[in-house]
């Protein structure tokens, strides 16, 4: 998953640090077919750039 596909900071061009995951339960309402059945929602990943400090998110695979 994230080990193989590091996010790249669009500003600095460096690999970002994957430091958090959070379940988005609301996605069960909007996208019921895409939820992780074990966890009850979509897992959102949080990646932060060590150069500029910006944080980006993406849904886990």
């Amino acid at each position, binding site marked *: 998953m994230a080990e193989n596909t590091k996010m790249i900071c669009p500003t600095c061009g460096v690999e970002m*640090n994957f*430091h*958090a995951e959070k379940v988005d339960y609301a996605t069960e309402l909007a996208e019921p077919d895409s939820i992780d059945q074990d966890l009850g929602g979509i897992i959102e990943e949080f990646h932060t750039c060590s150069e500029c*400090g910006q944080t980006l998110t993406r849904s886990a695979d």
Partner: protein
Amino acid sequence: MAEARPLFIPIILGTTRQGRMSEQVARFVFGELSKRKNVESELIDIRELSFPTNDAGETIKDPKFSETIARADALLLVVPEYNHGYPGILKHALDTNLKEYIHKAVGICGVSAGPFGGTRVIENLLPVMRELGLVTIFWDGNFSSVQSLFDDSGTLLDAAYVRRLDKFFKELIWMAKVLRHGRENVGIEDE
């Protein structure tokens, strides 16, 4: 370490009411925080934000507010205690962001007309902070009997608050530095 960049710690004044006494507290806290080396701050008055009340959450984001929170390393809330709770409008504003808060420090200054310095509103806010992904510190600011704390020009009448805030800031800044390092360098999958 990434500490060459100053820490950015905005202060959120958490009430829109007319005659709010928390404004004087927020301005005092902002003035004291602005004196710290390597810390930048900004006072966010939620009265100046405008969120629809017929929807909630990220669908009603204010782009400038969200950008400010995204840039922050920590947040400092100045919050009055209303009937033992927090202002609903503050919760409404905070709920418009989520990813902007993750793994950032938060400190809370409670304000009350009574003797307890907003301790109950702080306690009520803690689970909210946790769910937003913020990391609370264990020092609080407690501004009691706020109607007697400032003169007509807004000058603080009790100098003890300066020393108390110093301790509060030290903890908040430490946590902000540590969490910035963690966000930028410590992976969730590191063993």
